[in-house]
Each structure stands twice: as structure tokens, then as C-alpha cells.
């Protein structure tokens, strides 16, 4: 148990260091969501409702966490292939699923840069003060949102393992995630079937929990659903990773780029 926890912590930290030295990740994950946040602030500012700006301020801050996972997690296995370490990771005695979890968690963690940058950006340039009535529960909501997005990334990375240009899928998922998880738009505006899709995504509940904690309401139900959904995503991803690896070994396609 201790060895597993140590492996998770070391891999998370190592991956985080790798990601932060990449200009693509480092610069883009902070700057890119800011363009969308600025646009959202400029749109919401026109209706003159300060509460709408606070809604946009909090949502756009968390939005970057989704961006952090969509592209990078989808190409995580392909990146390992290019580096020639995929076979080593698969052959290691540690279950492959356990290796992937801290990798995608580190990817989601880099979204926190964007969160801080967007909150500061909104405060300084647009005067948006996001009130946090219960900081402890707010932090719990944020932590769960990051973990839930990491588990989504875990599933995504495994699901597109056989897709050589998986980054394109990741890019494509950026806008739907921003739209469906309720970061900038209330779910009530969507048709019912779209709302069902939103509710199946763990970040939707994490975002709701953060909004509830921010407004001084109880976030426990949202947190519970977020944890439950993240666990389901992680379990499906773990099972799928076994299937994908068996198939790759049988067809000798593990290292094919």
C-alpha cells in the first residue's frame, strides 16, 4: 500500500514537472483559457448584472482545468509511444492503470494555474470578486473537480489508445466540455437530452459543488455524485486499459505510431 501511494505521488510530481517545462502546456494552459474568459466577461458585462459576472468569473476559472485535460490526456499514450517508454510502462510490475492515474491527475493539476490566473485576471481587469462563503468546502469542491476531470482524462487516454491522432479528438472535446459542464452556461438552457449528457459528466457536479460552497449552500450532494461518477469513470477506464493492452499485445501494435 505504502509503495503504491509512493509510486502515485512520485509519478504525479514527475509528470507535473515535465508538463511545466513545456511551452505548449505552460503558456497555453494559462493564456488560452484567458481569451475565452475575457470574451465571456465582455459578453456578460453587457447585461449589467454583477451576479452574472460572478457566475462567469467562477466558471471560466474552472474551465481551464477541462482544457488542461482534453488535449493532453487524449495524446498521453501516443506521447509515451513517441518517447519509446510505452512498452516499459506496460511491462513494469505496477498495473498500467495505476501508472496512468497520476499522469492524468498531473495534467488536471496544471489547470490550477489557469484557475488562479483567470481569477486574478477577472479581479484586476473586470473587478469580479468571487465570494467564497465556505472556503473549506469550496476547496473540497475544487479538489474533487480536479480529480474528477483527471478520471475523465484517464478514461479518455485509454479510450483513444488505438487512435494515432488522438490529440485532434482532445481538441474537439474542449468546446463541448466547456458547454456541457455548466462552466459558463446554466444547464437549464439546454434541451433535456443534453442535460442528461451533462449530468453524466463528473465535472458538472464538481462545478455545482463549488458554486454551492461559494454561495454558502450545502455542496454535499453534488460532491457525493461527483465522487461516485469519478469512481465509475476510473473503474471503466481500468477495465478498458486491460482490454486495450491485451489487444495491443495480441496484435503487436503497442509501439506502432
Amino acid at each position, binding site marked *: 500500500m505504502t509503495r503504491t501511494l509512493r509510486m502515485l505521488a512520485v509519478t504525479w510530481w514527475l509528470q507535473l514537472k515535465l508538463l511545466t517545462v513545456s*511551452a*505548449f502546456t505552460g*503558456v*497555453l494552459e494559462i*493564456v*488560452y483559457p*484567458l*481569451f*475565452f474568459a*475575457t*470574451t*465571456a466577461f*465582455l*459578453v*456578460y458585462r*453587457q*447585461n449589467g448584472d454583477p451576479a*452574472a459576472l460572478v457566475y462567469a468569473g467562477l466558471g471560466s476559472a474552472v474551465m481551464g482545468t477541462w482544457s488542461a485535460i482534453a488535449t493532453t490526456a487524449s495524446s498521453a499514450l501516443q506521447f509515451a509511444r513517441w518517447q519509446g517508454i510505452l512498452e516499459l510502462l506496460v511491462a513494469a510490475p505496477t498495473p498500467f492503470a495505476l501508472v496512468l492515474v497520476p499522469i492524468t491527475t498531473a495534467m488536471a493539476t496544471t489547470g490550477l494555474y489557469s484557475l488562479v490566473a483567470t481569477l486574478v485576471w477577472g479581479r484586476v481587469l473586470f473587478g469580479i470578486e468571487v465570494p467564497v462563503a465556505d472556503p473549506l468546502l469550496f476547496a473540497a469542491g475544487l479538489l474533487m473537480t480536479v480529480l474528477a476531470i483527471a478520471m475523465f482524462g484517464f478514461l479518455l487516454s485509454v479510450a483513444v489508445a488505438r*487512435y*494515432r*491522432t488522438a490529440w*485532434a*479528438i482532445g*481538441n*474537439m472535446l*474542449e*468546446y*463541448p466540455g*466547456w*458547454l456541457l459542464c455548466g462552466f*459558463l*452556461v*446554466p444547464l437549464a*438552457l*439546454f434541451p433535456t437530452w443534453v442535460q442528461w449528457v451533462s449530468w453524466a459528466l463528473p465535472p458538472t457536479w464538481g462545478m455545482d459543488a463549488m458554486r454551492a460552497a461559494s454561495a454558502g449552500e450545502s455542496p454535499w450532494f453534488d460532491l457525493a455524485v461527483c465522487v461516485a461518477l469519478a469512481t465509475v469513470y476510473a473503474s471503466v477506464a481500468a477495465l478498458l486499459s486491460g482490454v486495450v493492452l491485451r489487444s495491443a499485445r495480441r496484435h503487436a501494435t503497442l509501439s506502432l505510431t
Partner: protein
Amino acid sequence: MTTLRIFFVGGLISFRALFGWLSPWIYIPTMFVAPVFQVLLFAYLGRSAGVGSDAFYLVGNAVQYCAVPCVFAMANTVAGERQTQTLGIVLATPAPRLALFVGRSLPVIVNGWLVSMVCLIVGSLILGVAIPVAAWEPLVLTMAIGAASCTGLGLVAAAIGLRVRETAVLSNIVFGLLLVFSGANVATSAMPDWMAAVSTWLPLSHTITAARDIVAGADFGNVSGLVLREAGVGLLYAAVGLAALRLLETSSRRTASLERM
């Protein structure tokens, strides 16, 4: 004749060889699916804020998204030569530089225009925005000018790509700047004065205004001034891009930085 071959054939071959997104596995999600979701994101954002109409966001984002094919592809088709280590060979040839680089921009313009048109058609069907039949013909021409103008900015990005390594980061930043400043989602009248002033000097802002006017019922004659201004802005950027390419080519020979990665 050789110049024409370099312009048309060379341009097409470079586009096919260096713009690695032409695989349907990349092209369809990036060029057809993502822009439609961008339109939906901002249309719903507008509905949530009670600002603007679906048509406003549809036209704005359909035009603005051509920045992805135009800027990324232009940067790739020139700066991509560094990655393939062929830039030195290309620049050692006596081929006229105008035909060489402008020829590469022609397929980029066509592609950018196509992406905008598909986004406009699919977006209008999903959002239920009725675009008058008479509007399509002027829209086709206006959006082609917009794509050409944005490709001018792409030439500038391509020139910078001769010196910097992270062209993807650069192109993403250019895309983001156009998203904020071009008026795709915020009318220039609702922007702070300094932003509105910047907007008029950026590609796509005049095309967006013209396209919105056309969808609202204006004919081409009414928006011809805007289209001309867009063409002027595009030519300005293209001239700056070509001059920068020449300058960086000369300086890269001196500093041996042509294929430094």
C-alpha cells in the same frame, strides 16, 4: 511559366505535404466539428447573458474560426520546412519568393473559406437561424476576402515561425487575440475604445461586420466599403509577412539559424 508553376503546383504540393491536418481523422474533428461547437458555446453564452442573437454569434464565430485553418496552415506550410529540414534547400533555389510564399497561401485561403462556409451552414441548421437565399452569394465572396485577409496575418506568423520554435503556441495566441478583438462575440460598439481601435486593424473584423449586415438583409453594394477595408488590412499584413520572411531569411543565413531547432 515557371513562376506560375511555382505559384500553383508548388503551393498545392507544399500545402499537402506540410499541413499535416489533412488526414480526415484530424481534419473533420478540427475543421468541421470544433467550429460548430464554438458557435454553440457562444450562442448559448449569449442566450444566458441575454445579449445578442443566435445569428450574431453564428456569423461572428463562423468567420472567426477561419483563423485556425488560415493561421495554423500558413505557419505550418512555411515554418514546417524547418521541422522537415528542407527549408535550406527551398531557400537556396532561385525561385521568386513572391510566387513561392504567396502560392502556398492560395490553398490555405480556399481551405479557410470552406471551413467558414461549412460552419455557417451547419450552425444555421442547428440553431435554426434563417439566412435569406439572396444573402449566400455575397456571403461567399465576403468570406473569401476574410479568409484571404486572415491568411495575410498567417504569413506574418509563418515569418515569425522562421525564428521561434513553438509555432503552435504562436498560432493559438493569434487565434485567441482574434477571438477577443475581432468582434466575433462582442460588437465593437460594446468594446472599450482602445479595443475597438485595435479591432479595425485586425483581419476579420470588417468581414464579420459585413457578413452580419448581409445576413440582416444588406446587399453587397452596402457592405463593399467594409469588404474593401478588409482586403486592405489583409494586403497590409501580407506585405508585412513577405517583408519579414525576406528579412528573416537574410538574417538566418547570417546567423545560421535556418534549421536550428
